[in-house]
C-alpha cells in the first residue's frame, strides 16, 4: 500500500492551459504539503494544510490554488500554465515532526 500517492505521475501540457495534480495519503496524518523541485533538484515548500486549513503559503503566484476536501487529500490546481512552472511537484504528509513524500508529478509545459 502506497502511503502518499500522487496522480498523474507525468503531465505534459501547453502554455496557458489549466491542470490539476491530486495527492492522497493513507497514514492518518493531519498535515499535508506541496513542494516544487526545480531542475537543479532544489526543493522548496509551496503550501501546507493542517486538517483542511491552509497554514503556510510561501508567496506562490495565485495561479496556484491548493484544495483540501478532507485531511487525507490535498490537490493542486494550476491556472494559465507558464514555461517556468515546469518542475517536479511533490506532495508530503506529516504526523507533526518528520515528513513523508509522494513519488512526484513531473510537469512539463511546452
Amino acid at each position, binding site marked *: 500500500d502506497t502511503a*502518499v500517492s500522487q496522480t498523474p505521475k507525468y503531465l505534459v501540457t501547453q502554455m496557458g492551459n489549466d491542470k490539476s495534480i491530486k495527492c492522497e495519503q493513507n497514514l492518518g496524518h493531519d*498535515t499535508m*504539503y506541496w513542494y516544487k523541485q526545480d531542475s*537543479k*533538484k*532544489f*526543493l*522548496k*515548500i509551496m503550501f*501546507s494544510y*493542517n486538517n483542511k486549513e491552509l*497554514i*503556510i503559503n*510561501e508567496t506562490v503566484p495565485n495561479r496556484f490554488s491548493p484544495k483540501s476536501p478532507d485531511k487525507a487529500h490535498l490537490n493542486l490546481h494550476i491556472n494559465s500554465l507558464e514555461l517556468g512552472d515546469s518542475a517536479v511537484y*511533490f506532495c508530503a504528509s*506529516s504526523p*507533526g*515532526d*518528520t*515528513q*513523508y*513524500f*509522494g*513519488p*512526484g508529478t*513531473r510537469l512539463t509545459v511546452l
Partner: protein
Amino acid sequence: QKEVEQDPGPLSVPEGAIVSLNCTYSNSAFQYFMWYRQYSRKGPELLMYTYSSGNKEDGRFTAQVDKSSKYISLFIRDSQPSDSATYLCAMRHAGGTSYGKLTFGQGTILTVHP
C-alpha cells in the same frame, strides 16, 4: 545568503569508502534536522531525524549535529552502490508560524562505484 548551504558535490567514491555529507545553516531557529535520500525519479525518503546536538546512529548511517557551529553531517560507512542517490539535508523551526516548514539544502549527488 541561503538559509541552508549544502556541499553540492557531486561525490564519487569506491565501494566500501566512508562518505561524509555536510550542511551549514544560518538561522539559529532551526531545531530539527533531517537527512533525506532521493533516488533518480523518486520522492525523497527520510533517512535520519534528530533534534539535539551530538551523534545519532542507525546501521551504516550516522547523523551529527553541532548547533553551536550550525553544522550538520551525515556519515555513511561501508558505502554500497545502492547508496548512489542525491542526499538532501533539511531542517525546521520548533514552532510558530513556520511550524512544519522544511528548508532544504541543494542536495549532494553521490555515486558509489563497485
